[in-house]
């Protein structure tokens, strides 16, 4: 791998079947070197299957895939030398110590023991686990395990780090610590691929992302462009005592881009949220509660995956 191509992962018509089940149904994407690329989608959207194909652990069923300039079907082992994987389930050896977990993982890459020792010291610091170096993984909290798994993935100085739901199940503090560490990696030129079903995480971390649903990509772009392209910039959420949302939507007519009923509230999308709220009040309607906010990926997701009740 002498010449570093700008595109580190390229997929065309990528598919994955498990017997009759089509987990990934033909997707196209390309990931640039040095960016943070996100796969956003609900559970079962095909994100993990895609990650496993990119990390050369699972063969693709059809389509084209190039990772680090090579075909995983032919040189999986060689490609994996440049990848650090943070799997969803950690796959840490819970009976071994923190340090032993780092050590053996480094050995899998055939890194000399001396080099591993030096690197592990810094990585433990990075993961804030220095004082836990000799504890069994069994005794670590969820956040500590996650940080250890990230540190482990970095032992081989990879150019591509793949994180499958890096913050699922963590408390807010632990999540922010993980995010902060990922920013550091990005600053030093590591390419990151992240899957998540947290919209705020995708918005915070990703330079570009794709939205996946039922094995297909249903939207792509930067977080901001996705929001502006797909839904409007702002949202007004209102709760009405009588719950008669359909007639309100009728009366607002062309003044809003779109409206959606979510459970017991109505979301109205438009360029200027305050203006819409004024309009509602001018119609003589007094909502039980109201909120004007910027549109988020959550709204994009609801729109793209059709998980909304009415337009």
């Amino acid at each position: 791998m002498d010449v570093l191509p700008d595109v580190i992962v390229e997929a065309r018509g990528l598919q994955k079947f498990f017997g009759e089940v089509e987990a990934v149904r033909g997707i196209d994407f390309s990931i640039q070197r040095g960016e943070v690329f996100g796969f956003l989608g609900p559970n079962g959207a095909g994100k993990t299957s895609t990650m496993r194909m990119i990390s050369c652990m699972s063969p693709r069923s059809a389509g084209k895939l190039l990772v680090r300039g090579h075909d995983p079907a032919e040189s999986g082992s060689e490609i994996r030398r440049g990848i650090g994987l943070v799997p969803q389930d950690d796959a840490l050896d819970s009976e071994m110590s923190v340090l032993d977990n780092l050590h053996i993982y480094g050995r899998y890459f055939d890194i000399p023991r001396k080099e591993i020792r030096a690197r592990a010291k810094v990585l433990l610091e990075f993961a804030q686990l220095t004082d836990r170096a000799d504890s069994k993984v069994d005794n670590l909290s969820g956040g500590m395990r996650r940080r250890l798994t990230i540190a482990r993935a970095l032992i081989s100085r990879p150019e591509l780090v793949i994180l499958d739901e890096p913050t699922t199940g963590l408390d807010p503090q632990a999540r922010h610590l993980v995010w902060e560490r990922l920013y550091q990696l990005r600053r030093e030129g590591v390419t990151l691929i992240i899957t998540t079903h947290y919209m705020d995480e995708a918005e915070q971390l990703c330079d570009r992302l794709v939205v996946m649903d039922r094995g297909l990509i249903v939207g792509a772009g930067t977080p901001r462009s996705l929001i502006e392209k797909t839904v409007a910039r702002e949202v007004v959420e209102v709760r009405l005592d009588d719950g008669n949302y359909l007639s309100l939507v009728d009366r607002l007519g062309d003044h809003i881009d779109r409206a959606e009923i979510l459970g017991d509230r109505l979301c109205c999308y438009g360029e200027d949220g305050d203006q819409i709220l004024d309009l509602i009040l001018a119609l003589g309607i007094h909502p039980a509660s109201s909120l004007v906010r910027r549109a988020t990926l959550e709204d994009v997701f609801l729109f793209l995956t059709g998980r909304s009740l009415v337009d």
Partner: protein
Amino acid sequence: MTELEYAPGFFTPRVRQGRIRTRWLLALEYWFLQYRRAWRGSILSTFVFPTLYLASMGLGLGGLVNHHLGTHAAILGNGSYLTFVAPGILSASAMQIGINEASWPVMGAIRWQRSYHAQCATPIRITDVLYGHLAWITLKLFATCLVFVGISAAFRANSLPRALFEIPAATLTGLGFAVPMAALSAHIKNDAAFSTINRLLIVPLFLFSGTFFPLAQLPGSLQVLARFTPLYHGVTLCRALGSGQLMTLTNLGHVAYLATMVAAGVVFARKTYTRRLSR
């Protein structure tokens, strides 16, 4: 957030170049490291239990047998019961250790510790995962058989230089069971199968493959059946080697039988490992 003390560029990608020649050796390292913390538990079943069997059966029960038949019974190959039973217990223990090492640890590496999955995310390939683990089982079998032959010598249950040939023979016997078992462990989903296999397959093999008595003691039809079992071939091979019969055609037959078990196991295991680890 506190600023970290690391050199700038610490995370800058630098992928190692050059060929990695023997990836399975890297997978083998995992099992060494793992053994360092778990040896206490396994020392009982690998070293102490076979010795207990040798003492109880060879010396205790042997006392009764020698009392009845004398110490040079033709039926026991003109030796004492102790010298008859020692190679039997050796190969039967190798079988049990092979089965144990290829059942819970394999399932654990797939389901609980997930160490196979961790290996598969690195340059290690699925076949390396398999060969690394099998290499570990081979080493462990060899070490156990070596120690047991040593202990048998201390009991005067074998004659030493030639009894050393029993070590590779018993190791092969253990592998003949371990490799197909590893294949099966990667295939099955429920660990309840292990106790069924142990109770309905391994225990009968342990008792009816000529370990504790010559097959002639069994009724005719059972005798024929017993001759087809892999443990019978292992026991007979060890017994022949221990009594100084080295290069005989029958020995070659036993070795061929056991080697076929290993080879078939490898073919089967490559299939089940690939299916389980590359989903």
